[in-house]
């Protein structure tokens, strides 16, 4: 797929600059664009259940957003800077994005081995992240969790005009701390939305995928060669079973967020979803395909991002492009505090992969990858 396939026009004023609650709305009163093979419908998120069926399975992400943006300082000649932590690899090793400020990216004049302080902790730049040189491996041996609690704030970019407390960055499903940025697709879910889904007979299962910092525009001409960062994920056995059962029974599986798609597809073994736990940098694009979901609830994604390639893989490029044209025309709002999009693919498209299991297949346990 070519980079040009991911380009569309979106006026800059269609960015949500503040949470719904600060725009006079409840969380679930953001708009909902429903895109199905038959066409597009405009609604409000609180009416989500009206567009789902009894037996539909929603897969949600239980990851909690961290206050991952830390004040930092080094003798770089640029004064204080911002360190956005992206992914925790353990033993004090992180991938992080050093920025001049929330609004201003780098690059900063960093050399490998350089020392700095982040939230008062001694730290060191180790190496740039391969292929994504704005990100660095950094070593922070101290108590990062406590330092984040004291000095950190949610990661924020220039289009969000002021800082909001961490609560604004948590979803109703948040249970396991670890995401650098809010898994924002679930932000509009409220108690009353969950009640209406329950009344409709919609099931919910969970995964954990801790998001890293947002990826930037795809620069490569061939979309598939764009490098992605690995993210920690867990697909519990119960969720794997719920997905497999729903799919075999012809019920729809709808991911809440691209993170849920990534986790389920990473746990796909070629026949079914298995329980899994690890780090994934699986890149989902049309050539790779999608095997585990029939639909997606998501925010609206920027032009020329890898997320769009995933949306194309789920529902086809034509449907997504027409949906985005509709969203632009109708003035939908982009980004983490923006409007929502329910994408329902042609259900037959991906069901073909679920064949009846004749002989149980035993996975090779020591050969991992």
């Amino acid at each position: 797929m070519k980079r040009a396939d991911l380009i569309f026009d979106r006026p800059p004023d269609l960015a949500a600059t503040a949470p719904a609650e600060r725009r006079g709305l409840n969380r679930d009163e953001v708009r909902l664009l429903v895109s199905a093979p038959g066409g597009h419908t405009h609604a409000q998120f609180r009416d989500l259940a009206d567009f789902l069926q009894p037996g539909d399975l929603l897969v949600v992400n239980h990851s909690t957003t961290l206050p991952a943006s830390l004040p930092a300082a080094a003798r770089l000649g640029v004064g204080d800077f911002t360190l956005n932590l992206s992914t925790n690899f353990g033993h004090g090793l992180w991938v992080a994005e050093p920025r001049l400020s929330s609004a201003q990216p780098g690059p900063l004049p960093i050399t490998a081995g350089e020392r700095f302080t982040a939230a008062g902790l001694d730290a060191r730049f180790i190496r740039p992240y391969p292929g994504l040189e704005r990100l660095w491996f950094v070593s922070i041996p101290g108590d990062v969790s406590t330092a984040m609690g004291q000095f950190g704030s949610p990661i924020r970019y220039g289009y969000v005009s002021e800082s909001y407390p961490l609560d604004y960055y948590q979803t109703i499903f948040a249970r396991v701390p670890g995401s650098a940025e809010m898994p924002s697709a679930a932000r509009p879910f409220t108690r009353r939305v969950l009640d209406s889904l329950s009344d409709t007979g919609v099931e919910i299962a969970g995964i954990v995928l801790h998001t890293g910092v947002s990826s930037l525009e795809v620069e490569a001409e061939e979309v598939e060669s764009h490098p992605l960062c690995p993210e920690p994920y867990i697909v519990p056995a119960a969720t794997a079973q719920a997905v497999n059962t729903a799919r075999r029974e012809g019920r729809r599986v709808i991911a809440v967020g691209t993170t849920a798609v990534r986790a389920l597809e990473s746990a796909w073994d070629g026949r079914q979803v298995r329980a899994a736990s690890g780090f994934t940098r699986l890149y989902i694009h049309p050539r790779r395909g999608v095997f585990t979901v029939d639909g997606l609830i998501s925010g609206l994604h920027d032009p020329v991002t890898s997320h769009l390639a995933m949306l194309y893989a789920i529902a086809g490029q034509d449907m997504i492009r027409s949906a985005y044209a509709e969203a632009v025309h109708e003035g939908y709002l982009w980004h983490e505090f923006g409007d929502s999009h329910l994408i329902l693919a042609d259900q037959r498209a991906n069901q073909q992969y679920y064949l009846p299991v004749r002989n149980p297949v035993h996975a090779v346990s020591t050969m991992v990858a």
Partner: protein
Amino acid sequence: MSASTHPSTPVALITGASRGLGETLAHFLAGQGYNLVITARRADLLDQTARALAAYGGQVMALPGDVADADHRGKLAGAAQSFGRLDLLLNNASSLGPTPLLALADYPLDQLAQVYAVNVIAPVGLVQATLPLLRAADGLVVNISSDAAVGGYSTWGGYGSSKAALDLISLTLANELKASGVAVASVDPGDLRTDMHREAFPGEDLSNLPTPDATLPFWAWLLGQERASISGGRYQAQAERWEVPS
């Protein structure tokens, strides 16, 4: 006493550390605060690497020599001993054998023995020489493997069979050392733009291959796992996902 000389500072021993993957990992570990014992046959290149590693502020002992030489392995173990601990033994040095690569029917047997001496015997020898230190630190042994270990590719029989042997050694050691707290893993780094790859494919354009840095996300993951959970695994450093064996 500075932090870098404190006995709580982790220590890694890396073979084949002057170039390629070994050099890249030496930088990665030095950046994370490891003290290092590094070795390679080329003294001049090893010295360059050691000088560059000094920028991270940790201690580096660079001992040029051949890992196939038992005396040299003893010196490497002694260097780790002088640091007081060994957390990571990275058996990375490998011999490709005669290049251009030869079919087994034509392979000089003394050269086959030499490939095995470097790729099979030396890693076992280094484990034996450093085992008391590894035990004391609940250490990790990583043996660098190759897709040639399972490929059966023509002319790769010498190198590939040595790596297949090393894979089974890794798995066997993992089982044998489980009770002692020492973990052993096998890692296939995938095709990389290194001098070794250039020797194997003389004259070919390798500019599309990733540099050894491309494997750093994998190493970050591997070193972050509970040692016991990864022991006995064989991992592909350029895979789409990494999971501990179930």
